[in-house]
């Protein structure tokens, strides 16, 4: 792999992170005027919180000093104190990471696998009935608001059919007899949120994979592969799909933003105890330090994920390698 290429990508990511830090800082401090006023307007803010924030912001100093302080605190892992939970933002966020990672991870993996498969089948059978069906399915799921799909699922599967629990990650008050019982309880709670989250993403991945494959199909090396006497299946599997998958790597990474958006909605609907729900609560209660902390963490995670995707891409595509 090309060292310069990777170094370049890393530097670019660092620049982006710095830009995000600046944006984050200004969004919460400069734009709406004095942040202290906003905090004071917040009925749930305690005097201690105000005092702490005041000290944290160092509002009497010029903005670049304030920014320096802000960065210093960040580097020490200090993201401020949540109004709502009266605890350090870092700790609040940390307690919510695992459920989100679980939800987003499973949802994303399912969406990528099924979406890619649908895209392959649709492109392969282009213009045929199965393509039209899959294409319509993809376009319709792609057009659905995530939260709405979630509510409809709750209303239908949980309330109407009583098949799944409506909220939470575990059944409250239940003591488990075995690890397996715990896993199965979580799985039952996870089913609908994951279904919702992956359904809205499947459509997009399917559309992208289909387009990408259709592009590849017009390439001369595909005709060559057919001329070599290989059956269609072999040509698609060995020659077309590996090429068509390349753009998918980048898209999946960029789409992490979309997944986060989906997670916020799904977690809100299903009261899933993750970062998305936390963000919704922070928003509802105007808990700015918490909101800012989540925003920052999530954004940096997405930037790092994109960097990883770039590296994976340059590993997979021999043309970038050197």
């Amino acid at each position, binding site marked *: 792999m090309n060292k310069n290429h990777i170094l370049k990508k890393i530097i670019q990511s660092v620049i982006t992170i710095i830009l995000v830090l600046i944006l984050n800082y200004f969004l919460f401090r400069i734009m709406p005027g004095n942040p202290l006023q906003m905090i004071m307007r917040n009925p749930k803010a305690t005097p201690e919180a105000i005092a702490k924030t005041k000290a944290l912001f160092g509002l009497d100093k010029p903005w670049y000093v304030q920014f320096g302080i802000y960065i210093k605190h960040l580097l020490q892992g200090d993201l401020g104190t949540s109004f709502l939970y009266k605890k350090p933002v870092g700790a609040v966020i940390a307690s919510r990471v695992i459920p989100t990672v679980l939800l987003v991870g499973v949802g994303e993996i399912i969406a990528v696998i099924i979406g890619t498969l649908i895209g392959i089948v649709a492109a392969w059978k282009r213009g045929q009935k199965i393509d039209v069906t899959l294409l319509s399915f993809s376009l319709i799921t792609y057009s659905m608001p995530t939260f709405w799909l979630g509510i409809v699922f709750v209303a239908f599967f949980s309330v109407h059919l009583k098949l799944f629990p409506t909220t939470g990650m575990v059944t409250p008050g239940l003591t488990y007899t075995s690890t397996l019982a715990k896993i199965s309880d979580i799985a039952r709670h996870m089913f609908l949120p994951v279904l919702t989250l992956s359904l809205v993403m499947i459509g997009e991945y399917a559309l992208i994979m289909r387009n990408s494959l259709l592009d590849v199909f017009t390439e001369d090396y595909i*005709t060559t592969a057919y001329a*070599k006497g290989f059956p269609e299946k072999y040509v698609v599997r060995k020659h077309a799909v*590996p090429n068509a998958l390349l753009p998918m790597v980048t898209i999946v990474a960029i789409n992490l933003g979309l997944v986060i958006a989906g997670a916020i909605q799904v977690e809100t609907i299903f009261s899933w105890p993750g970062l998305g729900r936390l963000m919704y609560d922070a928003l509802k209660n105007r808990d700015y330090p918490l909101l800012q902390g989540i925003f920052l963490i999530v954004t940096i995670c997405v930037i790092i994920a994109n960097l990883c995707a770039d590296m994976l891409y340059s590993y997979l595509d*021999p043309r970038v390698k050197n």
Partner: protein
Amino acid sequence: MDILKVRDLKTYFKIKAGTVKAVDGVSFTLKEGESLGLVGESGCGKTTIALSITQLLPPEGLIAGGEIYFEGTNLLKLNEEEIRAKRWKDISIIFQGAMNALNPVMRVGDQISEACVYHEGMSYDSARKRVKELFSLVEIDESRIDDYPHEFSGGMKQRAVIAMALACGPKIVIGDEPTTALDVMIQAQILQLLNRLRKEMDMSMIIITHDLSILGETCDKVAVVYAGKIVEIGEVETIYEEHTHPYTEKLVKAFPNIFGKREMTASIPGMPPNLINPPAGCRFHPRCEHATEKCRLVEPKLKLIGGEHYVACHLRGDNDE
């Protein structure tokens, strides 16, 4: 012996605007060890002939009639699996634009060996050995076997594509514009290589090109294609020197001869016809200065006028049916 016999081949494309009669009644014969050039302007249907032989037409293309005999079997009567077995093993193609004919994410060696593994059931290792032999045949260093296509220069890619076409020892190789977009010197290298390989490996060859002037060193026979039909076919010297069809004459004169007199080349007035609604009678008549009433009404048939020289023109062949 005749290895390939194409009889009255008709290949049409159904598109929104109508049916394009890209190939409309083409017949020719390729003898064992012979090299035939198919020459004509762009859009005359020469590539479609090649794609019809191996049945690699795009979905909107369809073979509307005719027969294609390869060693006595009609390829058009074979089912999908049978025709697949013939591809590459018996008839392989060198496609136009080598840079695009190679899969960018697959090692060059693997792209060549996969055909051997698939068609001849070779083990991966023996297939690799074969690739190394092929590389030395086309003069590529065998250390480059694990390179990706983008690491090859233009000329090397073309050589690799040729090596690929030879992988299964085919009986016929079809070169579709094998040297277009290459520099003259590399063009000369490739043509020389193709000539040598054809003789060494005892293959038959079809060279498809718009460049009539490259055929002198490469082909025994030349067929001139105009608007989906062969208008003249004969030995390459005959086509260059004793052509009788007005189109062939114009085409030959369109190429300068730097070893001859410096005179301006000729152009052919008008444009090739629309193949959805080709002109009645002789398809060349709207551009032909000798056209008569008969040319406008009656379509000329390909007639033998001596040796192996056939021509489809009312003005030249006297033996009317």
